[in-house]
């Protein structure tokens, strides 16, 4: 039941096609922009998104620039947060509670999971409230709203990249050489990105109408950390429950990271497939929910 009557942009070039080719001579035969009510589910309108790709870049760039303005240690925060968490985890879970770590030194074991986890947690915190933080834009200018949460998640990627350097340092220190599996790492980064964006789409769209979401997010990330194998290996979960465990997409992401980087003996196949399937559902569902709610954003926000 998809009725594609959303703002049907039929123009050949979007507003202001790249260069001077939009002179008056080009006016003839360029179909007009039609603004009318939409009903039901809206199409994605990829052309519009593509047209505004530079805005996505500028919004991400803005958030990256502004993020650590007027902080004393700047981007070091990106490293410090997962690093200190790793230290605490190593002492409490590694030393005191003697949580097994699949034969890898516990600090590396937890840090390799804290990387995607920190990315995910900051991304949904930032992007989940992003529409409301950018309220002045949403209520005063038109642009594809999808750009706002997407930029929010992309900002996290920058922190992620910085913290990654530290992981390599640690692996060097412990003499861990990744195997051929490291080639699959980009796939897991993508999976982490899609998970974060998928969740953010839902949260940000809901937050426009229900500001409760803002207060739910800290609780959600805390809760989620416990059900994700960050401090403990997923091998602690009984075999028969692993697939079910995979319903938590971050479980798949984290285990994937560990496998790709640290080369645990065998690939955690089934669980990751379940996680990937959940991510796809979350992501696609999020996209459509977001698009459906989008038309009300300016009125409700």
């Amino acid at each position: 039941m998809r009725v594609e009557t959303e703002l049907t942009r039929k123009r050949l070039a979007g507003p202001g096609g790249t260069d001077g080719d939009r002179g008056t001579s080009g006016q003839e035969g360029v179909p007009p922009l039609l603004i009318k009510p939409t009903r039901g589910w809206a199409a994605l309108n990829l052309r519009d998104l593509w047209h505004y790709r530079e805005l996505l870049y500028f919004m991400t760039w803005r958030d990256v620039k502004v993020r650590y303005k007027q902080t004393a240690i700047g981007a070091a925060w990106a490293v410090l947060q997962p690093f200190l968490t790793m230290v605490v985890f190593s002492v409490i879970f590694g030393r005191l509670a003697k949580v097994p770590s699949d034969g890898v030194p516990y600090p590396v074991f937890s840090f390799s999971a804290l990387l995607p986890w920190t990315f995910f947690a900051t991304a949904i915190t930032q992007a989940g409230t992003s529409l409301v933080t950018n309220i002045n834009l949403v209520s005063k200018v038109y642009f594809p709203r999808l750009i706002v949460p997407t930029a929010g998640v992309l900002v996290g990627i920058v922190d992620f990249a910085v913290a990654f350097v530290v992981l390599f340092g640690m692996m060097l220190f412990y003499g861990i050489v990744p195997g051929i599996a490291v080639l699959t790492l980009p796939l897991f980064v993508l999976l982490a990105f899609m998970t974060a964006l998928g969740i953010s789409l839902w949260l940000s769209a809901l937050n426009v109408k229900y500001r409760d979401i803002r207060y739910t997010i800290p609780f959600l990330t805390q809760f989620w950390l416990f059900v994700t194998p960050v401090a403990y290996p997923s091998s602690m979960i009984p075999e028969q429950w692993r697939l079910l465990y995979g319903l938590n997409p971050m479980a798949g992401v984290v285990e994937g990271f560990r496998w790709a980087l640290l080369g645990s003996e065998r690939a955690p196949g089934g669980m990751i497939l379940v996680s990937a399937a959940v991510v796809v559902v979350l992501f696609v569902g999020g996209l459509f929910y977001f698009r459906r709610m989008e038309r009300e954003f300016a009125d409700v926000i």
Partner: protein
Amino acid sequence: MMSEIAIRVEDLGKRYRIGGPKEAYGTLRDSLVSLAKVPLRAVQRGRANGHREFWALRDVSFEVKRGEVLGVIGRNGAGKSTLLKILSRITEPTTGYAEIRGRVGSLLEVGTGFHPELTGRENIYLNGAILGMKKAEIDRAFDEIVEFAEIEKFLDTPVKRYSSGMYMRLAFSIAAHLEPEILIVDEVLAVGDATFQKKCLGKMGDVAKQGRTVLFVSHNMAAVQRLCTKCMLLADGSVQVQGDVHHVVHDYVDGTRSTIRSSYQLIESSQLGGKAFLEHAAVVNSKGKVTDSVLFGEPFAVRMIWQNLCDIPGLSYAIRIFDMHDRLITAVNSIDTSLSIASRGKYVVECRVNHNMFPPGDYRISIGGYIRPHSSIHVVDNCIVLSISKMAYSKDYQYNISGDPAVAVLGHWSIHS
């Protein structure tokens, strides 16, 4: 002939729901309250569709030809902003459609998306991108933007350190270099100093002369008359008149004059649902008589009857006086004084103006009760009219000034040898 038309609007309508999920919350307390209300609300929604509907815009149709400058005027709440929001694609219409031929640049607010921490240079790129410009276009227009805004020296300073004038100049300058085929402008000229306003109006005039289409919403009748080639008057969400600029502006000014009465009487209080309401309001002259016309220079008072349904700590009153061009002439707030009546009951509240410096003419008075700083208790826009006659309060004095002075005083002349 079809390509001559830049904007065609057919039966456009926009419905809002009042109450229900449209309640604006923002503070922690409000959120908790709303959190508590969630289950309740679900029940209410299930039981009956309790939303009241409100059409901000109804059956609006018009056409704008390429190169025309259409002025849109009307009182606050007439639907002007809603119309612009629909045409800028920020919100969707409920009915009808609009057809737009050409690239649209819309300026509903100058400086949207400026980030205070970023420098002028960075904000030019960010704001340009937000307004829909490509990086290449911004590069090309960059020097011109900086020059028009006169901020060369502060290009690498964060805009949070800018003066408000610099901020506005930069913001307008970026928007002015957007070079759209259709420009949609909402009242952006209401800000900034006189020189800058003049510069902006000049730039808008240039845009129009270049054969671009402009849709201009304003309360500034002088600017509308100067810039626009066509005008449309909106009232209660629909088109009242459209056509010749002078006719429409005239209708508007006349209309405002005749629709408000000299005294105000609340008819139905039950649907207000507030904690207090304004029951009656009128202007009284220096002799204490209710009137709609006060002599030039004569002290007068606005007398109101307020009914407080419960104790309202922090209740204050405000009176705003506008001229017929919708310019705010003055505002008086009881919060500036020690006056306070917070308890339940019926009160006669009077605000005396001892120094009447209003030039002869007609004025509109809006009255409101507030709990500062956020919530309004009962606000009546265009509540009563006040007209100041040319006859002066002191004998052997006749007001004969032509032109449009901001204030008018009684001069006490004397000659000595």
